[in-house]
């Protein structure tokens, strides 16, 4: 770190790269935080977590006991053990007692992406409530035809204020906060929609994953979906960056990747064969990759192609979706305990083998991905695992929850991971404290730390 600082001072390192390095270092050192603790007021499983996108300061959580709470993650409400442990209590809680509160479990709670004045909760009681944060009153609500699994708002949107809602119903509905009515009804899924995600590259593109195992891409300006991901259409490895030479700032990382990727692919190809048990299909998909690209390009009437329309991306339901920050790749988790990385451009499965053991199957889950798309955080039963996006290797395992983990959120601003699980806890995983931090407080904290020392009596 000191070296990087020196390099940055000398101008050897570009600012963006420097900050990237720092953040990735910090993320690589995430561990269960002992000095930051969120006091969960929930009496049910925590289903949804989100830190607001504007300030990066307020954490919103939605839980199965129909309560949603907001915490200030920057300033602690109280300290314990001689300011060793900072406790963050909820600023406010809305629960069943609230006059407009939800009756059943809140499955999704998200911030209004523009500011922290509004937040949106979707619940199993068929309602989507839009809350005013300051007055904690419901401003608008939408009645949906079934249980709501997931709601999403586009963080890029400048021209619309639509809430995309995935429900038990086969149709995805877009609720317009401005008018308080349903703007669109997107039909195409053959079963309930578990998860919805807006594209990070276009404000008009919506990705939905259903219980039928299909992942559909919608352009909300047009009718029908324009892309259905097919797990049998695959491409090996990552597409080489288009402007490799021009994007010199990414050089150190992206340079290393193709090489390692190709190695990975080569080594993995036989594995896949074994895994699937038919090499012919494998080779066929390999051949059709270029063909697929061609198909994707003619976006006009993909819904007409019934063969493509029936494609599935997972065996079973799609439980989690996450688009990388650059909007080029999509990660999907399914109830078949698989994690797949899709190239959005080509619509192909990249065949990265993520070393997941098992995933929770019954609930929608929330994935988190780092800014530079290096690591993806996936709730794997009672633990949260961080996988290398490109190799699928497990980078870190976060064990702390005693029951299934439902959601995780990576706060990009201070590189902290928040996870919520069925054990009603919200855990904070933060980078290990910097050394100079301790040096600063060294003299003061001496007596406290003295407790936690070796104590050999014999």
């Amino acid at each position: 770190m000191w070296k990087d600082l020196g390099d940055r001072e000398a101008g050897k390192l570009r600012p963006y790269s420097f900050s990237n390095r720092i953040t990735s270092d910090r993320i690589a050192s995430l561990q269960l935080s002992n000095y930051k603790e969120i006091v969960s007021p929930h009496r049910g499983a925590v289903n949804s977590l989100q830190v607001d996108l504007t300030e990066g300061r307020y954490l919103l959580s939605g839980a199965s006991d129909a309560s949603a709470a907001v915490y200030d993650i920057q300033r602690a409400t109280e300290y314990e053990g001689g300011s060793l442990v900072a406790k963050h209590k909820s600023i406010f809680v809305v629960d069943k007692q609230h006059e407009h509160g939800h009756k059943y479990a809140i499955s999704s709670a998200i911030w209004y992406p523009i500011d922290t004045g509004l937040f949106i909760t979707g619940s199993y009681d068929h309602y989507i409530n839009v809350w005013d944060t300051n007055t904690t009153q419901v401003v608008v609500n939408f009645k949906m035809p079934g249980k709501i699994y997931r709601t999403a708002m586009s963080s890029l949107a400048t021209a619309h204020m639509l809430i995309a809602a995935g429900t038990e119903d086969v149709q995805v509905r877009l609720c317009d906060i401005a008018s308080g009515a349903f703007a669109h009804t997107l039909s195409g899924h053959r079963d309930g929609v578990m998860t919805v995600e807006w594209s990070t590259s276009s404000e008009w593109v919506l990705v939905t994953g259903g219980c039928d195992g299909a992942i559909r891409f919608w352009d909300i300006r047009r009718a029908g979906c324009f892309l259905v991901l097919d797990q049998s259409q695959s491409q090996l490895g990552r597409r080489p960056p288009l402007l490799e030479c021009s994007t010199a700032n990414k050089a150190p990382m992206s340079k290393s990747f193709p090489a390692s990727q190709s190695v990975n692919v080569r080594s993995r190809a036989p594995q896949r064969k074994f895994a699937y048990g038919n090499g012919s299909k494998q080779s066929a998909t390999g051949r059709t990759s270029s063909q697929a690209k061609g198909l994707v390009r003619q976006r006009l009437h993909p819904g007409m192609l019934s063969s493509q329309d029936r494609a599935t991306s997972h065996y079973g339901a799609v439980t989690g979706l996450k688009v990388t920050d650059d909007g080029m790749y999509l990660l999907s988790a399914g109830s078949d305990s698989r994690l797949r990385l899709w190239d959005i451009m080509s619509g192909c499965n990249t065949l990265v083998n993520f070393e997941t053991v098992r995933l929770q199957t019954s609930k929608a889950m929330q994935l988190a991905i780092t800014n530079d798309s290096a690591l993806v955080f996936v709730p794997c039963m009672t633990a949260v695992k961080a996988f290398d996006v490109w190799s699928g290797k497990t980078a870190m395992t976060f064990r702390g929850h005693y029951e299934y983990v439902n959601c995780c959120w990576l706060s990009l601003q201070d590189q902290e991971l928040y996870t919520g699980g069925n054990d009603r806890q919200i855990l904070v995983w933060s980078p290990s404290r910097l050394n100079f931090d301790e040096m600063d407080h060294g003299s003061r904290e001496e007596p406290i730390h003295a407790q936690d020392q070796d104590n050999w009596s014999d």
Partner: protein
Amino acid sequence: MEEESGGGPRVVAISLIEKATNSTASEVDPRLLKSIKSVVRSSDSELRIAAQTLMDLMKRDHAQVRYLALLIIDELFMRSKLFRTLLVVNLDQLLSLSVGFRRNQPLPAPAAVASILRSKAIEFLEKWNTSFGIHYRQLRLGFDYLKNTLRFQFPNLQANAARIQQERKEREMRSKEILLKKFETLKEKFSSIKEEIQLTMDEIRECLDIVRPKDESVPLDFIEDDEMEEFCSSELRQIRLDSLKEAEKVHENSDNKVVFDALRELYKLLVTRHLVSAQEWISVLIRVEVADNRSRDSMLKEFIDIRNHIQSVKKKCEESGCVLANTMNDEEEDFWEEGKIELSESDSFTAANKQSKDLAKASTSSKAKSEAPECSNKESNGNKRSGRESIESDSTSLRSKLLAEAPLMNWGSFLDNWGSKQDVLANQRGLELEGHWGRVDYDAVIPAEKIAELNIQTTVYKEERVDIQPCRAPLSKGGLCQRQDLRVCPFHGPIIPRDDEGKPIHENSSTEEITLDLGSDLVEQLAKQAVKNVRDRDKEETKKREYDKQALKRAKLAKVREHNEAVLREAAMASTSRSEAFGEDLGATNMDKPLARNKKQTLASMLRKKITTKDRLGQKLLNTRVRDETMRQLTLGEDANYREAFPNQW
């Protein structure tokens, strides 16, 4: 590098741990544990290896191994920080292996050990949490999860200890406060208390001064001039001196009675109040903790002085003799009087008892066959001997009532402890026959029941005197036969009621009773008569042959039946309890057969307790019938209830 160099000891650590866990004891071998600790302490790599090994051992499918491993883990956990940091990362795994809270991972085989393992693990977790929880979020999480989500019962050792400590502290505080308060009040009242005590003591001294000078001054010269020479031996002289002194002591008389009384009063006050209070204040002062020790100490000193003073005065009082003795006497007298009151009461009571007993005796001895109440009335009316009795005669009604209930008893020693339900000491007769027949258990007791059993009264059967009716048959020489036979006169046949001339009186009204009483021959006689009657009728009405035959048959049947009945009744009367009452009725109605009557009655009364098979059968039949009846009624009632309770289900 390090791994290679630590190759040897690593094996040692692993083998030590495995050896330690490979036992069936409930404790880790302390020597092994010590060596493990010393090995692990020497280097971090050892510790890492040990942690790994222990975690592996925890995964073993045997509760005993896990239990011992857990004990070692606890030992190391409490000591090494590195070990803690290593272990805490996998705390959930450790907990699931030791507590077994996951349903799909229950604890392995020996169930007994598994339960110990679980309780131990919970206890350890609590301990770890209280001592290191603040430094390890994982510990807090695990503890919180087990406690608040799974609702495990933690032993709460620390909390309990703290609570007890707290309680004790509070109690101490309270007592201290009380002491302090007392001290404060003492401070305020100190002078007044002192004054009061001083006052009493002064008064006592004055009293003593009045009493003393006489016995001080007189005897000395008395002895010296008079009889000095007579007592050569010093001992004798001493005795003499003492006796003289004693004689010369001022004794209470009418003149100085007032002084003595006052002295006694004051002495009592001094001993019962001031001395006690002084002692109390001293103890308070000793125990109290106050800021200004000087004042406390001075007060304490003063109080001790006062106490000593009081004691000296007390001694003086006692020396003056009469005071203590008198007070003692007073007390005794009081006591005695009280006792007397009680005694007199009980005396009167016993007297009354005795009187009633006398009465009873009198009534028994008197041959009048009147009932007890009459008798008592008569007695109480008859002899009004003393005033007491006259008083008691006011409550004659009550007395008579009681006497009506009272049993008639013969005089005997048992009346001495009448109605007492006490156990009696078996070997306390007042005779000192120590060990004459061997060892004697002086505490041996005859239980009250046994006594009662021994006191059961023997009653001799006394035949009621009955005057036997004379035969009264007319004799040929004139007059009536005066033979007194029970049933049959040998000369004039059965004894029957006769009028004054000796003619038999026919009483047909109560034929049945007669048949009953007279037995089978009379029945037969009657039957014969009946037959004769029938035959008479036969002669008169010869036409209706068939009818006659039927009548005859009927008559015969009736005869047989009657006979049977009579026999049965006889038997029953002789043996059952019921027959007695029956017989009595009879006795009242027909007095012509009093002899037989009475005899039978007495027989029946003697055999009162006997229950015949017939009775028993009847009882049983009745019982079963009643039982059936009640059962039916009960079920009916239940049905009704049920119908009421669930009308729609019926």
